[in-house]
């Protein structure tokens, strides 16, 4: 019997729990040249804002120990061009499509989401309320329970299909934010966005990013992300969790699921190994065979605490 790695979140079935993370797979075209997207549970697009955004001046990225810093600055084509140029292609793709939405006001989230509501092949939206790179941006929402709830509930009114709220680690107590997102009507939580960090070039004395700081991602942050998932999973919040942060191997995915993630997203590792999701799905299946697990849901939350 081949192990069943399908997962269902908010009534939607995914062929597997391995998704790509926003900002790490563009709008999907490039990745589709590397492997068939049918191998992917879901594709999560780069954050879309109302207006097109050029993003920050380069350098926008810097390598760090087992990770990277980025301050892309939410560069994206804007909702108009996204709908006219990207959606038609995305609608043809043999995978679930999740559009990540960002904004610097609740109204912007609402406006972008309302437009996406008209595209039935947008299976879900993911609200990026935790982007560390925009000065006057999403970050205020993601650290404030009241704003989080408001943002989600207002979007809820205009977007009827499932909504994922994507939380960041840069708060004292992530469960408060998770609860606020739940109260606002989110269907699932994506945990977590980048941590914060910076670095400086010791020859020029300039920060390595023109934005002076950026989001820290990659294997370095995996232990933090696992803890965030663990804490929220045990907090009484009922929503399914999509685990994100430093996933590079199928072993990492097993860790996230044991701590309570129903699905995961692969981000930075795509840069090193663009076909990582394919390898991870295969490894996960092999692991389930060894462990004699019929369905991948048998892993979720099964960590045995001391």
């Amino acid at each position, binding site marked *: 019997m081949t192990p069943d790695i399908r997962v269902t979140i908010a009534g939607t079935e995914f062929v597997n729990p391995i998704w790509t993370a926003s*900002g790490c*797979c*563009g709008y999907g075209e490039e990745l589709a040249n590397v492997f068939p997207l049918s191998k992917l549970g879901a594709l999560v697009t780069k954050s879309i804002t109302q207006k097109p955004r050029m993003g920050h*001046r*380069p350098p*926008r990225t810097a390598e760090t120990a087992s990770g990277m810093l980025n301050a892309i600055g939410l560069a994206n084509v804007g909702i108009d061009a996204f709908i006219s140029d990207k959606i038609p292609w995305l609608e043809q793709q043999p995978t679930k499509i999740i559009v990540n939405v960002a904004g610097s006001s609740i109204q912007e989230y609402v406006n972008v989401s309302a437009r996406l509501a008209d595209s039935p092949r947008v299976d879900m939206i993911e609200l990026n309320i935790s982007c560390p790179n925009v000065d006057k941006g999403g970050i205020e929402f993601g650290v404030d329970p009241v704003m989080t709830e408001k943002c989600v509930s207002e979007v809820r009114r205009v977007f009827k299909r499932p909504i994922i709220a994507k939380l960041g680690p840069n708060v004292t107590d992530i469960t408060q934010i998770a609860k606020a997102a739940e109260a606002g009507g989110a269907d699932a939580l994506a945990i977590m966005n980048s941590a914060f960090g910076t670095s400086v070039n010791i020859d020029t004395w300039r920060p390595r990013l023109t934005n002076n700081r950026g989001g820290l991602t990659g294997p370095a942050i995996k232990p933090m992300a696992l803890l965030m998932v663990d804490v929220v999973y045990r907090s009484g919040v009922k929503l399914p969790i999509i685990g994100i942060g430093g996933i590079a191997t199928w072993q990492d995915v097993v860790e996230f699921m044991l701590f309570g993630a129903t699905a995961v997203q692969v981000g*930075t590792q795509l840069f090193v190994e663009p076909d990582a999701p394919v390898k991870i799905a295969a490894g996960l299946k092999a692991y389930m065979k060894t462990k004699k697990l019929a369905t991948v849901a048998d892993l979720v939350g099964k960590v045995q605490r001391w």
Partner: protein
Amino acid sequence: MIRPSCEETVLLRHRDLKHNYYSLTFGPYSRAKECRPGSFIHVHLPHTDVYFRRAMSVAAIDPKKKEIEIIFKIFGRGTTLLSKFAKDAKLDILGPLGAPFALPTKTERVVIVAGGVGFPPLMFLATDLVQRGYDPKKIEFFYGGRSDGDIVERARIKKLGVNFHVTTDDGSLGEKGFVTRSVESFIKAHGSEKLRLYGCGPDAMLKATNDLGLKYELPGQLSLEAPMPCGIGVCLGCVVKTTRGDYVRVCVEGPVFNIGEVEL
């Protein structure tokens, strides 16, 4: 549209070119013959503490043997570790990547401007042109470096039969001075008609080459470098500003850009 893929290849030859330059040849690499001058590959450094791949221009290919060669200079940790891999090591290569150089017309005279470690894709270009039957005597290969140690693989260029001009900043080999000064002398002497420029090298040299192109209204292309997390266009980390004012990806829209196209 290019479909890049990851492929494990074997390090077949490891040559120390001295002065911190190395040549590595990998094979069998199934995508070797799809690599064009200006194409680059993204090399993974397995088991090392360097997380990202490193972009390397293709310096030569052997389509029959399915081999590709890269040439690099030790710069930081990535290239240091790359230089330490021994023959028979297995490295994963992501490629072929990037938009290659556009070929000149047969009536054009080609002026190649290579600066230091910008040499590899231009050696490939010159080799490719000669192999395509382009008259080597119509190729001016300018190669500048800080000093003689920065001018590698001279015999290979000479063998092509192209007009070879070497400059060094300190005069230890060839003419003394910046390579672009020699190029300008040539343009002045020869006249700018039917010339096409190709350049790759350090930022200052690229800028000077771009300026020459604009000044003498020469068509041509430059190959750029940028920090490249992904190399396939998904991270938006490698962008450069165009003279139109928008950002384009060096890994997909480049690394080869037309003269005057990007801000340098």
